[in-house]
């Protein structure tokens, strides 16, 4: 069921701001407060807004549930793979500190902050953000489809 044109227009505009804020939270999770879980929840709230405004029937033509499930599983696999990457020292060892990828080391104490730091932590933030976004969006989409009585063939 689609909502009125006012709601659709407003959510079309504001979903961009929601997605930008969520991506900011995910990408700066190792510098400022935030992180993968919080940013992924913000992104999933944007997806929930689109589903509520445009109706689950119109959304599921473009956004299938099994695609979201694949995204969620790949996020989890990236997270575990990064954890296994440090297995030469110990599980969950941060093996990218000092390397060319996210390898800057900030001075201890207060400093202006640098996005290109953190080693494996920003990549884990991205993986967890992908996982939370896909998982919560899949929950909202499946519940909306079930409550509107649409039968989707598997």
């Amino acid at each position, binding site marked *: 069921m689609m909502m009125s044109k006012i709601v659709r227009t407003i959510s079309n505009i504001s979903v961009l701001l929601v997605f930008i804020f969520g991506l900011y939270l995910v990408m700066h999770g190792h510098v400022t407060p935030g992180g993968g879980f919080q940013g992924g929840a913000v992104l999933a709230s944007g997806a929930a807004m689109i589903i509520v405004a445009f109706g689950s029937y119109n959304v599921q033509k473009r956004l299938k549930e099994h695609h979201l499930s694949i995204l969620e599983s790949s996020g989890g696999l990236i997270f575990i793979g990064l954890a296994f990457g440090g297995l030469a020292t110990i599980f969950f060892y941060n093996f990218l500190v000092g390397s060319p990828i996210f390898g800057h080391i*900030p001075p201890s104490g207060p400093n202006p902050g640098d996005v290109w*730091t953190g080693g494996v932590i920003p990549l884990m933030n991205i993986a967890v953000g992908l996982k939370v976004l896909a998982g919560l969006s899949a929950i909202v989409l499946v519940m909306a489809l079930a409550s509107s009585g649409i039968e989707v063939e*598997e």
Partner: protein
Amino acid sequence: MRKTAAAISLGIVIAFLVAAAFLIHPFGYPPSAMDDYMIQNAQSETGTNNVVASVVFDYRGYDTLGEATILFTAVTGVVMLFRARKKGEK
């Protein structure tokens, strides 16, 4: 017999709880050197300004792995509950 065993085990649990309430560290006192170590070394070891992120994703990575597993299980359960049935399936 069972009531006696239950009473004895309950008494042991209550004794541990009371002892824990009286033997706890005073408020604000660092109970171990762990938090001081993280505050001192998190920036040089993991390269993150956000010490909370370094704890969540590096020092306590197992905990985050468990959280991700919980989310995965929840999503699996919800999708399994609300999935569309095939024709002829009850």
